[in-house]
């Protein structure tokens, strides 16, 4: 479904990703962990198509297509979704209007019939219940005046509504209390499906107690330096990222000697 090979990305002239490779299949949940500044959010933004991220080498294939060639809206229509680390407040744009415009724009590109307001609202109500979000949020402007937790839950609510094939969660757990964290995890788990893949970017292992990943990757200095199963997250929690750095140093020395 997603194949990233030797991806190099520069942001404002500085190389952030330095040869990242990752392969994902439908139905899988991959956690990306790593220290601050490792390039975790850069990965999410590059996959979603944000401007200002210069790909200097490497390829990203998604469902057989060159993902990097697509505009952000085309990626969305093709099933890519990024849950933002910092959801943007958009005053004056009504949340319901925005969501319906987004869903119908995607459906139109895919050649599916657009939903009328009754069909749309029915779908909205179903998804709201799962995220324990209040109806009232729908009448407000996009993310405006939402608490930190509401913003993150709203991201997951949008994901539930848009039903992407590849969902990237960029530190969706940051700033959440334990109850909100559980709601977010419930929302994600309810969507786990053999046809859908998730990239869960997180700093802490805590979220992975609730969203149990199939694979855990450690991203450090722009590359994936270690991959394993869910157990790797626990090891990291125990030993810290320094442990990986030391092991890689040892590995580097031996590689250099070879």
């Amino acid at each position: 479904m997603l194949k990233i090979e030797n991806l190099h990305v520069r942001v404002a002239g500085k190389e952030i990703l330095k040869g990242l490779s990752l392969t994902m299949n439908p139905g899988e949940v991959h956690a990306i962990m790593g220290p601050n500044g490792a390039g975790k959010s850069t990965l999410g933004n590059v996959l979603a198509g944000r401007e200002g991220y210069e790909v200097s080498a490497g390829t990203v294939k998604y469902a057989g297509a060159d993902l990097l060639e697509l505009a952000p809206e085309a990626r969305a229509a093709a099933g890519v979704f990024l849950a933002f680390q910092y959801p943007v407040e958009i005053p004056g744009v009504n949340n319901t209007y925005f969501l319906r415009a987004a869903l119908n724009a995607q459906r139109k590109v895919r050649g599916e019939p657009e939903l009328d307001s009754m069909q749309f609202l029915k779908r909205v109500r179903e998804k709201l219940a799962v995220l324990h979000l209040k109806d009232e949020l729908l009448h407000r402007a996009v993310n405006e005046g939402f608490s930190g937790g509401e913003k993150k839950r709203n991201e997951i609510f949008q994901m539930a509504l848009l039903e992407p094939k590849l969902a990237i969660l960029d530190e969706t757990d940051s700033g959440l209390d334990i109850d909100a964290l559980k709601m977010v995890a419930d929302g994600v788990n309810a969507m786990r499906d053999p046809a859908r893949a998730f990239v869960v970017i997180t700093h802490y292992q805590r979220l992975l107690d609730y969203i149990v990943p199939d694979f855990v990757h450690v991203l450090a200095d722009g590359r994936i330096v270690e991959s394993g199963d869910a157990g790797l997250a626990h090891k990291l929690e125990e030993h810290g990222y320094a442990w990986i750095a030391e092991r890689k140093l040892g590995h580097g020395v031996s590689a250099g000697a070879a």
Partner: protein
Amino acid sequence: MAAAALLEEFGPADARERDESWRYSRTALRALAQQEFVTADVHASVDAALRERFAWTQTDGRRAVFVNGVFSAAHSDLNAIAASVQLRHDAAGDDTEHRAHLAINGDCAEPLHLVYLGLPGAAPCRWSAVLDIAVTHGHARLIEHHLGAAGSDVLGALRSRMTIGAGATLHLTAICDLADSTSLYHRGDATLAEGASLLTTHVLLGGRLQRHDVGVALAGAHSRFDSRGVFALRGRQHADTHMDIRHVARDTACDVLWRGIADDRSRGIFHGAITVAKGADGADAQLSNRNLLLSALAEIDTQPALEIHADEVKAAHGATVGQLDERALFYLRSRGIDVAEARRMLVGAFAAVALDRVEQPWLRAHLGALLAPRVGTENA
């Protein structure tokens, strides 16, 4: 004609002050002044396409139409005008300044629609008119609707004096929907008595040069002025608004919120001056002006000016000129909304904030429809 002579005709003011206030529009004014204008034909015909732009079903029976400054009985429809509303007008002369008097002495639930048409002739032409509005009591509602038809140049000048009596309210929506060949000078001076309120919403679109001088004297205690406005310009359109609000009496309030959008090579100017006179304690003055540049060649100049001579005053003002928020644009696009639609949503939302004082949903819909094509930003 010299630009100064043209300005002189627009109304008396201190010459140096006036010169300074025209600083951003001087070039546009000089270009106008160099042109020859003949007196506009007050019997010019109104075609069906133009008529459609103002013949709103919601204002049928309450519409007064002025052709190049002169009241036109043929185009007006005043069958359902409220008993509390009286409109008088001087008979059309050839070259005099045309005067209309509007007296309102009671509530009017639905607005009276005053339509000023700037109609071109064979040669560039100009008109000049005066409108006096007196609201003695009750809640008056007015739409002042300036429309320009494309063709040779038309330069209109309207001076409007408003007096709002004790406890009375005037709700005024001013729409200036001008052609690129239309210029309009508009001076509106309002005096508010004790407890009076003036609520205005300006929607300024198009125009070779449109200049609005708005003077408001909060002369009575507890009087209040709420001003909302938005301009949306493109091509080489030019709109310049100067607001001069004077808190004279105690416990007066003003709340000014304007939005500006400029695309292509257009130019927008907003100058908001608020003066709190000595002794006008308890004044509350709020001014906010935010602007959006949609092209590297567009220009917006904004200047809030606050002058306070009283002691207990609450005042806040802010002005910004910026570009579309790239983060917001990416957020919308990442959800599947294409770039053109995402821009329309953001610019539309930016402008819509200035329509919050418009009471009638149908009027809001008309204004939204006028604004929608102006926020399309197809060049971006």
